[in-house]
């Protein structure tokens, strides 16, 4: 067991070092990432018009800003940036051979790499995120209950699992088709709107919101942010966490299942 852990700790280290080499790359990426946030803030400012103290779907202007700032924060924390492309690459050009020969579980290996990317990425970006939160401080309210932090952490962890397993399952398609980028982008565009990055999902028409609630997408970002903002509590919180956990399990089964099917027909190109 200890040996197992040491092995993956090594993988974690290597992943972190690789990420650190490209730190400028992702610092730049997040600097550019601020541009949409600026646009979003201006747009919603104009939405509130002259009445900045009003409400839209139960959000004050400050709450909306907190919503978008938190969404960006959680997104940086949990959204895989290159994992699906790397996994698909390893399948396509035969680099997988090298990994299959090692005494490691491929899913655990990739998950460790994903975790190390995310941890390092967040650590490097923390100063920048802090600056954003300081600039926007008059709009930021932290949770008032200690329990909220706990629920938020649990939900963010589950969101990370869902996002990773979806990315992994998508990459598995590379066993069957050569060019998976279109499929990735189709899923990505659905995730983009239904995970709450563009607008808070409780602004959807109620009938649509009721459907979306049962899909995995809100649990990738929107749900943890709602918990953080204490807009959801009690029974609704428990139900939400249960749905989120269920989706994490479903996506895990999908990821493992696709791997088993895929590896059977793997041809080890270039091996």
């Amino acid at each position, binding site marked *: 067991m200890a040996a197992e852990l040491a092995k993956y700790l090594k993988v974690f280290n290597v992943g972190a070092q690789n990420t650190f080499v490209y730190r400028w790359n992702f610092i730049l990426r997040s600097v*550019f990432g601020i541009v949409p946030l600026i646009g979003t803030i201006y747009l919603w400012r*104009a*939405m509130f018009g002259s009445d900045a103290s009003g409400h839209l779907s139960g959000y004050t202007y400050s709450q909306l800003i907190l919503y978008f700032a938190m969404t960006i924060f959680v997104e940086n924390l949990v959204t895989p940036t290159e994992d699906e492309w790397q996994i698909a690459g390893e399948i396509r050009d035969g680099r997988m051979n090298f990994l299959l020969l090692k005494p490691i579980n491929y899913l655990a290996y990739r998950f460790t790499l994903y975790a190390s990317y995310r941890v390092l990425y967040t650590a490097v970006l923390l100063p920048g995120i802090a600056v954003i939160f300081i600039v926007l401080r008059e709009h930021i309210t932290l949770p008032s209950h200690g329990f909220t932090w706990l629920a938020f952490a649990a939900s963010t962890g589950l969101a990370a699992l869902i996002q990773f397993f979806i990315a992994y399952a998508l990459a598995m398609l590379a066993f069957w088709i050569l060019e998976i980028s279109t499929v990735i982008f189709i899923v990505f565009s659905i995730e983009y709107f239904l995970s709450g990055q563009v607008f808070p999902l409780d602004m959807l028409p109620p009938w649509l919101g009721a459907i979306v609630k049962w899909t995995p997408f809100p649990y990738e970002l929107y749900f943890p942010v709602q918990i953080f903002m204490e807009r959801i509590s009690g029974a609704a919180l428990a139900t939400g966490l249960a749905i989120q956990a269920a989706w994490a399990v479903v996506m895990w089964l999908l990821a493992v299942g696709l791997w088993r099917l895929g590896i059977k027909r793997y041809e080890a190109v270039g091996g």
Partner: protein
Amino acid sequence: MNRYVAIYRLTARNSLIREMNFKLNFLLWMVVELLWFVGQLAFIEVLYGQVQDIAGWSKWQVVTLVGVHQIVSQLFQAIFYVNLAALPELVRTGRLDLMLTLPVDAQFAISTRQVSFDCLVNSLVGIGIVTFAMTKLGTVPSPMQLALFAAAVPFGVAVHYAVMFGLSCMSFWFIRAQSFIHGYFNLFHIGRYPEAVFRGVFRFIFTWLIPIILVSNVPAKILARPLESPVAGLATLATATVIVLVGTRALWLLALRRYGSASS
């Protein structure tokens, strides 16, 4: 000049043949763009479920704006995007050498290697949306408006080109320029918001330094808000376009002086 036209015609023909070899991929890319576009329209629907107007813009005026953004950005993507996105790789591997030895201007050579016809189709979808939104607004554009609009669109495409070209040129200084390519999408993300929502220092930056908020707003206003001095808008867009084109050309020449090939 004729030589450039002839070269471009051949490039376009080759691209079409290539794309028809991968019909499924061609269709799937169209699906990607369509989903994205439908998402935009749904977003507008959500916004106008909350309020009647945004900074003086009505719902169908904003739909016109998003449709115009679709026309301009897809035209850019059809003609230039893939080529400019490939520049960092050309620089990294040193394959840029080949482009530099061609008997045409090197900027032309790297900018026009292939045409993406799927984006051209998506641009037509944009025209459809704009037409629909205009009907909802209950206005028929005058020939003058249409002429000004037709004049504004190429300027918009040129701004997209210059911004993306400038970002790609960063690859001469940074080896992994992938995040710059990413930056293009982040920047133009705000190009589909009504310019009236922007204020202060950011309004200045995104009007004059990186003129992304003019690109779709100027042509959209010519059609949907004709009372807001369309000629002045067009003149502003034209001036800003010339500035970014000249600026990025200078950046390119500077970058080439730095370039020392990769293999040697």
